């Protein structure tokens, strides 16, 4: 969480300094929920993060250097500069490279899990994240329904931050709570206070566990606010003051800090902060010095099969 927050703070300032390639979309205030997902997963699992999941990514094991490589346009990043920032992924590590179209990753993650089942790879879980707004997409519906029909070990985490960009939830859906959708898919669901790190760990741990044990898809709805604009170009002024000042508007990181102090670990917290800071700075420095993509060296071929294949002959 700390690394995520500092990394994002750094990205925001680099963005303001004009040093970022592309846009910057942050997960400020949503770290607890996101990180809990990454923590609950283990190696061999699949993680399909969305735009606000820096914390979950790092918790799941994404190297910080890969983050900075993407934002700073290094050619050594996981997407080689072809795609970037929030879309970065690393199939070898089990991180799916998201496409922008909201909802699309739900069925894709289900597909990975179906493949694992067919390959008789047991015990893997898939976890995908999205926002409250993304639940309005047909993709979300189709994907979750398919996962339910196949009873796949898929955890879908909805970060309900009450807004989709500027659109408040009453313009997005008419149900009282997105958790009300679980029953319609015949799956289990649990809500959680997304500003409470311990509750998040608890609920996500349980959801992942259930999925792993064969209980089928799990829906988790975390209630929280994003404590930043939609992207760094946005001031987010449309978020209602009342909401901001409510419990929901708490900063999960402050909650975490207080918790740590209450447990007499205030010194550790400071140490962690220091370490995280340093790690971020080092990654930024390293990535900044790396080569950028070169169009002349680039392989401009979008398919792996090139030209005419060899004649096909029945063996």
């Amino acid at each position: 969480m700390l690394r995520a927050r500092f990394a994002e703070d750094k990205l925001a300032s680099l963005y303001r300094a004009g040093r970022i390639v592309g846009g910057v979309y942050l997960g400020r205030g949503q770290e607890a929920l996101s990180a809990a997902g990454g923590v609950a997963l283990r190696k061999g699992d699949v993680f399909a993060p969305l735009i606000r999941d820096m914390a979950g990514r790092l918790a799941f094991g994404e190297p910080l250097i890969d983050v900075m490589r993407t934002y700073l346009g290094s050619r050594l990043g996981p997407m080689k500069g072809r795609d970037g920032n929030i879309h970065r992924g690393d199939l070898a590590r089990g991180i799916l490279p998201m496409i922008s179209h909201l909802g699309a990753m739900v069925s894709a993650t289900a597909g990975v899990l179906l493949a694992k089942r067919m390959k008789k790879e047991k015990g893997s879980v898939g976890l995908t994240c999205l926002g409250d707004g993304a639940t309005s997409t047909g993709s979300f519906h189709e994907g979750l329904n398919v996962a339910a029909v196949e009873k796949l070990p898929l955890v879908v985490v909805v970060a309900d931050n009450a807004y989709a960009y500027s659109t408040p939830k009453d313009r997005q859906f008419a149900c009282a709570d997105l958790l009300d959708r679980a029953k319609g898919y015949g799956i289990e669901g649990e809500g959680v206070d997304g500003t409470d790190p311990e509750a998040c760990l608890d609920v996500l741990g349980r959801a992942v566990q259930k999925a792993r044990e064969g209980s089928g898809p799990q829906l988790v709805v975390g209630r929280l606010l994003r404590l930043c604009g939609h992207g760094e170009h946005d001031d987010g002024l449309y978020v209602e003051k009342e909401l901001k000042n409510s419990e929901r508007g708490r900063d999960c990181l402050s909650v975490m800090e207080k918790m740590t102090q209450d447990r007499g670990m205030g010194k550790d917290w400071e140490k962690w902060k220091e370490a995280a800071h340093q790690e971020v700075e080092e990654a930024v420095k390293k990535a900044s010095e790396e080569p950028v993509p070169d169009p002349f060296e680039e392989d401009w071929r979008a398919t792996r099969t090139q030209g005419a294949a060899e004649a096909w002959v029945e063996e």
Partner: protein
Amino acid sequence: MSITYLDAIRAAQEKALRDDPSVFIYGQDVGKFGGAFKATKNLAEKYPGRVIDSPISEDAMVGLAVGAAMEGMKPVVEMQFADFSTVGLNQMLNHAATTYWRTGRPCPMVLRLPSGGTPGSGPFHSQSMETIYSHYPGLVVMTPATVEDAYSMLLEAIGMEDPVVFCEHKLLYYHLKAEALPSEAVPAFRAHVARPGRDVTCVAYSAMVHEALAAAEELAGEGHEIEVVDLRTVKPLDTDTILASVARTGRLLAVGESWPWGGASAEVVARVASEGFELLDAPPQRLNAKDTPIPYHPNLWAAHRPTAVRIAAALREVLRY
């Protein structure tokens, strides 16, 4: 006063809302927020109940517009980015586009697509989708290149009794400026000679018009007169204006920002080859983006799309023949 391409789009929508009570705007964040690009800024306040925030549901957004259009309204739907319109494509291609021929009743609606590449926006926020929409029967597809056209063509689109796909280029939103909004305009279905010349016809549309003009300027320095034809609308395509130009120049380069296989540039070259074969003194050529997803890194992006430099090089090739 200085008016941008984006201002023009906003102004056209405002005029349409003012003049015609059947017009309404529907899209994500278009209401109080004024849209991701601010193309509907202040319109919700001025026209309460007629500038409506939609959920993130492109299929339903277009479907809803189809229903409203069949019922006599004139919806203007904003996609947040053209790229997301794939999700609403079925309603556009199979519902909006087929309604008139299937039923004899009009389906007047406009789908606004913030289109085209900008540095760093990558594979899913940079697409030009006119090819898909133009291929299917029943749609009009506009691709304005100037501030004036952004205004007058959008007004014409909203007034039309057909479903119109309005491809706005994001790269032009803020930089392209005009002194004033036009009070009259060439009809949207007519192509326009943006720069006269007699050596090569360079057909372009949307942002590529400006790259073509820059290339033409460059070649003027080398003593060549390039005629730049701005298609303005790619479906229907104004073949007459193109052929008239090729009749003057005898040479053709068609430029498109979208991918090479089967886009507007292929259509232009195919038509000229079929209908204007005898006018040609050299093989008609095309220039498009590379056949890969649109790269995120600006270095790669600049090499991926046709630019003035690449257009100039292609024009020199055409001239060399």
